[in-house]
């Protein structure tokens, strides 16, 4: 009584198995790429990394040795400027969208934030150049930090809004019913309840801009030496990697690998940290 498999059924089963196996192969390839990237970078980076890399200035072409201490500090400074400008705008703007906004205006803000998020980073660089570099007549850490903050704001804004909205209204109502003002409710009840999520968004924002090169090319430019002031051209790790990797010198290539490893390490660690903060937050709330 068991029906024998006809040719057609066999064909369908074969197709089923082949296609399903192929999707597995696709997954394998994509995940393998990550490991290949990490592998190459760690292999070449570790061989090139030494203590000088963190403490010395870059040497001129042809000389061996030296480091990128100024670029590491410069990256830190531009990211710090970006945080100082970007975090308040993203955080407070997000509070407005989630807690105060009506209907039409928040929709506009939300839409433009998504728009800003999609603007190619090189175009952000042009914008920062027109509004800061041109009036100041100099490339500067300020211009670089401003450009990076523009890339950070949409992420902070939307994630703050998202996590504030996830807070149940009963919490707000309970606080208001006890006589707290709206501002007090937001500051002492709603924001603390959503703090893990908000923090995650802000850390992800930092992780995103830390590796950005294109907005810095003609805002903070580059510098072979220490920058004394925020109004001077400033070296950053991503721009250094670009300059060193496209140069014809072997020792500069070595430095580029080391810088790449340091930068990728920073970006991946901040990313993973952000996710850990979030997962801890959700488990705490559930418990």
């Amino acid at each position, binding site marked *: 009584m068991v029906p024998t498999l006809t040719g057609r059924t066999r064909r*369908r*089963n074969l197709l*089923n198995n082949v*296609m*399903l196996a*192929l*999707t*597995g192969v*696709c*997954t394998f*390839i*994509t*995940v393998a*790429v*990550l490991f290949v*990237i990490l592998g*190459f*970078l760690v292999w070449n980076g570790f061989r090139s990394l030494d203590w000088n890399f963190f403490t010395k200035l870059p040497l001129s072409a042809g000389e061996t040795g030296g480091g990128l201490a100024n670029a590491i500090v410069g990256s830190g400074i531009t990211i710090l400027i970006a945080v100082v400008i970007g975090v308040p*705008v993203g955080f*407070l*703007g997000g509070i*407005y969208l989630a807690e*105060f*906004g009506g209907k039409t205006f928040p929709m506009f803000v939300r839409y*433009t934030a*998504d*728009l*800003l998020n999609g*603007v*190619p*980073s*090189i175009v952000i*660089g*042009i*914008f920062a150049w*027109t*509004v800061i570099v041109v009036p100041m007549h100099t490339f500067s850490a300020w211009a670089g930090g401003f450009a990076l903050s523009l890339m950070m*704001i*949409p992420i902070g804004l939307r994630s703050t809004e998202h996590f504030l909205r996830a807070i149940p209204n009963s919490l707000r109502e309970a606080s208001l019913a006890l006589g707290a*003002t709206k*501002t007090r409710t937001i500051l002492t009840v709603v924001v603390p309840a959503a703090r893990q999520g908000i923090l995650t968004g802000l850390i992800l924002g930092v*992780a995103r801009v830390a*590796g*950005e*090169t*294109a907005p810095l*090319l003609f805002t903070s430019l580059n510098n072979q030496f220490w920058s004394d002031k925020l109004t001077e051209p400033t070296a950053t790790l*991503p721009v250094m*990697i*670009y300059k060193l990797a*496209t140069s014809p010198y072997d020792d500069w*290539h070595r430095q580029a*690998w080391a810088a*790449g490893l340091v*930068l*990728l390490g920073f*970006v*991946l660690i901040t990313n*993973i940290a952000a*996710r850990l903060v979030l997962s801890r937050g959700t488990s705490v709330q559930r418990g």
Partner: protein
Amino acid sequence: MGTAVIAAPPQPAARSFLKRLRDGDKAAHLITLIFAASVFLVTVFLVYELWIHSSTSRAKFGLGFLFTSSWDPVAEKFGALPFIYGTVLTSFLALLISVPLAVGAAIFLSELAPPKLSNTCTFLVELLAAVPSVIYGLLAIFTLVPFLSKYGEPFLKNTVGFLPLFKGAPLGYGYLAAGLVLAIMTFPFIISISRESLLAVPIEQREAALALGATKWESTWQVVVPHARLGIIGSIFLALARALGETMAVTMVIGNDPSIHASLLKPGYTIAAVIANEFTEATGDLYQGALVELGLVLFLITIILNASAQLLILATTKKGSKQD
């Protein structure tokens, strides 16, 4: 008494406004409103600045800017065609490679893989999205480019070299290298968003197809994927927008040649790459204006793509919630 009643009304209103301001509600509303509005204003200002700073080039070349192919800074002749061509070609090449791979992986992760494996793989793939583009460029220069010039491109020339697509010296740098790097950079987006929209397909759809005797693949390909198609298309649009605007990785491997070639092995140029390379050296208002206008063109293309992607993704999520 009567006069007191008439005089009274403005009093409570004023007091309550002051009180609300002192309690901070009005003030908080105002402050957060200013910050939210600044996001809107900055974006508008960005468009305005691009428009103003490209005025010299727009006045001189008009719409012809988009359709002429000479790029000669010395003679002050600027045409955007080689860059538009390079941008579109490399992005198209990237999607040609990444769409089948990424959609296949998304199907595996949503339909076949056990949840734990699926989540781990998705986590890894999303980390791939976080790798800075300059690092993709660094790796491509020292691994992909030598590989292509030694093995990949000679192989292509020997097998399909009769096609005009694969003519020219195997330099390594060129459209092909840029397309490959962009493919790797775009598939995290397609995988993670497509997987989400595939997971959003109700389980009943799969069960109904399987109950009718469909194989797992038939149920997936003929029922689940069409159900999630808007989300998948949306993810492809997002990936395309990302590929078009990608700067560093492409700049480092495309070879920087402002002319149009049919062969994928030849060096070319993209909009983002030419801005990155020439902006700081651009002397003269016209040269700078032309580069800013290229930025404006790039901005408009990516904005349109992003907006349509968001509409598509929104449409799928709306559809999903209605059926629940």
